[in-house]
Each structure stands twice: as C-alpha cells, then as structure tokens.
C-alpha cells in the first residue's frame, strides 16, 4: 500500500497522507483540481473501482468543506479515502458522475444537506429527503436543529427545564454564595 501512495505521489501532488488506524486504510488529501485525475487514475490503473461513499464534512472553523471519496479495491483489499477541501463560502465542485454512476445520489444528498453544488450532475437539484425546505442546508454546523424543532414543532413538556443539580446543591443552604 505504501508503494501505491508513492506511485500516486510521483504523479500527483499529495498534500497530506495519513495511515488509518487499521492496516488497510489510507487517507490522502489532494488538490481540489487534481481530484478527478487522481480518481480516474485510481480507478483505471490501480483497481479502485468501488466508490463506497462520497461524504462531506463541515469544518466551520476553517471555513472549509471537506469532501471525502471512499474507495475500495477488490483486488488489493484496501480502503482509500481521498479528500479535498473546498471553500465554504463558495461551495461548488465538479461531479464525478462520469467515473462513478452511483455518485449521483451521494452528490444529490450533499447538495441538499450541505448546499454544495456539483457542476455536471443533472439531478442534483431534485429533492432528496427534504420537501419544501426553506432554511439553510440543515447539516451545516451553524444550523441549530433543536431551536428549529422547538419553534416549529413544539414541546409538550417545556415548562419543566432540565434541572442542573449542581446549581440546586450549591444553592440549597448557603445564602452567602448567592449574589
């Protein structure tokens, strides 16, 4: 597997490589623009034919979205996660539909839940799981689902708040601690 990483490194610029916590998992980070070439190379030359998942992670602190492409090679029995970072303010990327047909649905999901649009994916704007959604894409870290839920759907038992036993304990006798 290390050979493979070396081979990739010799062709493409690998920004970061990391061995996973188990033997057959490697994580590499590549440049956004070379992703298609890397995936294409991996698929055609290195037998990474099975795209298990396309995932998105919101790193709101760095103002980035991470896109992860999880590949599996049946021959090598190896998992490889190829990840890139894209700008959170301009969430756009190009589709990998031409390489992996099943990416269509994963990309549609990311489009809906994170608002990352994939140029070249014809069905990305269709509803996936939501209907008539008007707020910001819900899986973004800055979307407060609890607040949204309570405002919209109500709560039967809102008058009893979750009690902080700590506070009760420190309050219950000693007046002097209270302001």
């Amino acid at each position, binding site marked *: 597997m290390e050979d493979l990483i070396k081979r990739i490194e010799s062709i493409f610029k690998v920004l970061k490589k990391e061995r996973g916590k188990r033997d057959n998992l490697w994580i590499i980070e590549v440049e956004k623009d070379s992703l298609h070439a890397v995936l294409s190379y991996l698929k055609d030359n290195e037998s990474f034919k099975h795209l298990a998942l396309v995932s998105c992670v919101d790193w709101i602190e760095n103002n980035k979205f991470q896109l992860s492409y999880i590949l599996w090679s049946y021959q090598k029995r190896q998992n490889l996660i190829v990840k890139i970072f894209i700008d959170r303010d301009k969430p756009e990327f190009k589709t990998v539909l031409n390489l992996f047909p099943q990416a269509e649905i994963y990309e549609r999901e990311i489009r809906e839940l994170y608002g990352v649009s994939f140029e070249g994916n014809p069905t990305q704007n269709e509803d996936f799981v939501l209907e008539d959604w008007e707020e910001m894409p819900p899986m973004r870290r800055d979307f407060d689902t609890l607040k949204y839920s309570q405002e919209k759907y109500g709560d*039967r038992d809102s008058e009893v708040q979750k009690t902080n036993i700590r506070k009760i304990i420190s309050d219950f006798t000693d007046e002097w601690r209270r302001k």
Partner: protein
Amino acid sequence: MKDNKYFLDDKPDKISYSEVWQKFFNWARAKSLWVVAYGTGCGSIEIPPMVTSRFDAERFGVSTVGTPRQADVLIISGYLAVKTLKRVIRVYEQMQSPKYVVGLGACTVNGGMYYDSYNTVNLVELYIPIDVYVAGCMPRPEAILAGFAQLMKKIKEGRADGWKHYLDNFEQYRKNQEKIIKNWKIPNYNW
C-alpha cells in the same frame, strides 16, 4: 379540475342514529378493525409480528388492508417526518368515518428520541387526533395488542370520537398542519 386547497372538498357531516343501534354498531366496529398498511416509522417493524402467526392480531378481527378507503384504523408507528406527515394527513382524510388512530411509541407523544430533529414533528396530536397511545420504543406486539384492546373498549363505550373532534376542530387542525406543511398543492409524484 379545480384547485382544491384541501384534500377533501368539504368536511363530511356527522352521523346520528338511535342509541341501541349505536351500541350494536359500536360493537361491530370494535370487533372488526381494519388497519391501513402504512408503516410511517420504525414502529412498523413490530406490526408484521403482530399480524402474523406468533401474535395473530386477526383473532380480534384486526387485519390489514391495502387502501385507506377501506381502513378503520391508522397506526402512526413512531415518528413522523414532515414529508410523511403530509401523506399521513392525506391518508387520514381519505379514510372513512368512523376512523381511529393509534399512536405507537414515544415519538408520537413528545417527539421521542428525535425531539430535536428538524424533520420530525413532536406532537402528533396537533395534526391528527389520536385515540390510543402505546408507550414503548418500540412497543412489543403484546403492548400493541393491549393498545388495540383499549381501543376496542373505547369504541364499545362510544368514546372513540377522535374523528368527530377532527371534524369539529377542522380549522384548528388545518392551521396547525399548515404551519408545518408549506406547499399544500399535491406534489406531482403523489396521488
């Protein structure tokens, strides 16, 4: 076709007949509950065991039918996603009175474990009237059967009037429903 705002053209009126007949029919209704086969949530996982050989709900006249038109009972099996809620309301309104709703599991009562989810409603009773609640997550088939027993008792005593309540407070219910469901036009991929 005129653009119906609601799924129903107008609200159906109520039935009234004499008390003895009422009792007789209530008895028949209690003994013959047809459940619409609509698994709205994960509670539907315990419906198959309930209607199959191990627990055999048919002993009590509880059987499943494939269409809401013929059904008497709608089981809200757990959480309702917003998208499902719309269909559930439609299914409920397609059902013919008298009709009953059984709420399974914690999610129907107060949101259950999805209380903070942006896509599931918390208090189902705001949108459709529920006659009997069964606690559990998910309730065992025995508990669901106990729920049905309670529903039967309620029907026999003539107290199962959630559907009347729905008709009486139709505007209120509709207001609640509209608060959540933005687009009341039937989407083109639904019948």
